[in-house]
């Protein structure tokens, strides 16, 4: 304990200091300070853990939102691809060749984008789905070659066969679309 009658204390403080020394108030204050410090430390740790959990929850929510956005993008792409494929089949049925190269090209771009996915998480397509998309891309390339050959030789392409093959692709792309919708809906 420091001497209570130290010369630098004002006179009116001396009785108070003496009383504090007699009742060991300094020790009590020291113990209370330590307890308050420990309590503050515990509260800080608890708050830190709470904010860490909140940050993790926010990160999870952001990831889920991003994943859902990617599903929505993929669904939009596949829906657009199916629409263009339907349009191509109508052109085939009506034996109209002029707009076909543009439509084939647009469809190939969309299918490639849909297969690759836009974000880091990908579209959630399985390898089997990607192989179906690859099938459709090969058939489109072959259809384009067949139409080009036919136009160059002034013969009509076998539109019935083209539509039969493209209908199979259309059905399989439709299955992927249903799968993606079910995945997006389940989240």
């Amino acid at each position, binding site marked *: 304990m420091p001497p209570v009658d130290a010369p630098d204390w004002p006179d009116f403080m001396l009785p108070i200091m003496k009383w504090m020394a007699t009742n060991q108030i300094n020790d009590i204050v020291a113990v209370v300070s330590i307890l308050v410090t420990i309590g503050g430390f515990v509260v800080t740790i608890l708050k830190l853990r709470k904010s860490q959990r909140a940050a993790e929850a926010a990160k999870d929510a952001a990831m889920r939102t991003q994943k859902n956005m990617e599903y929505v993008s993929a669904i939009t792409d596949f829906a657009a691809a199916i629409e263009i494929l339907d349009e191509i089949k109508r052109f085939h049925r009506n034996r109209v060749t002029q707009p076909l190269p543009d439509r084939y090209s647009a469809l*190939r771009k969309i299918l*490639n984008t849909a*297969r690759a996915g836009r974000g880091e998480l990908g579209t959630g397509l399985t*390898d089997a789905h*990607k*192989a*179906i998309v*690859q*099938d459709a*891309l*090969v*058939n*489109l*390339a*072959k*259809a384009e070659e*067949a139409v080009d050959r036919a136009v160059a030789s002034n013969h009509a392409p076998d539109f019935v*066969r*083209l539509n039969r*093959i493209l209908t*199979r692709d259309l059905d399989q792309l439709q299955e992927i679309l249903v799968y993606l919708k079910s995945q997006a809906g389940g989240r």
Partner: protein
Amino acid sequence: MATQDHLELFERLFQQTREGKLNWKDTVDKGTYVVSFKDYAVEILRADSQEGPDSAVVLGLRNAEGEIVERVDDFEVAQLFPNDASRRSFFQKSEQLYELARRNALGADKALNSILNELRTGNKDDIPF
């Protein structure tokens, strides 16, 4: 110029098609069948060979855009074999591969099995007249 990789491609396609692991499909071109993987596809067809007088079994590799990036036929690959006997054996295998791919793509085996199953169960269930 065929390489050992081309030979391995023939061999693996043959083996996995025979085991029913590959799903060949009919294409826009008659007599051409394709099996797709996630980024590439392989097509098989018969065509006149540059290496011999007979028709060859041709494999074509198509990229992600569906465009042909490579073609190789069984006459070219057969050049890798040291003697006629092994070449003949390889030709038989490539012919079988084409035939297996065709049957797989057109669903010939599936149709045959389904009909046979129905006939077999039909025979059991039929009420004799």
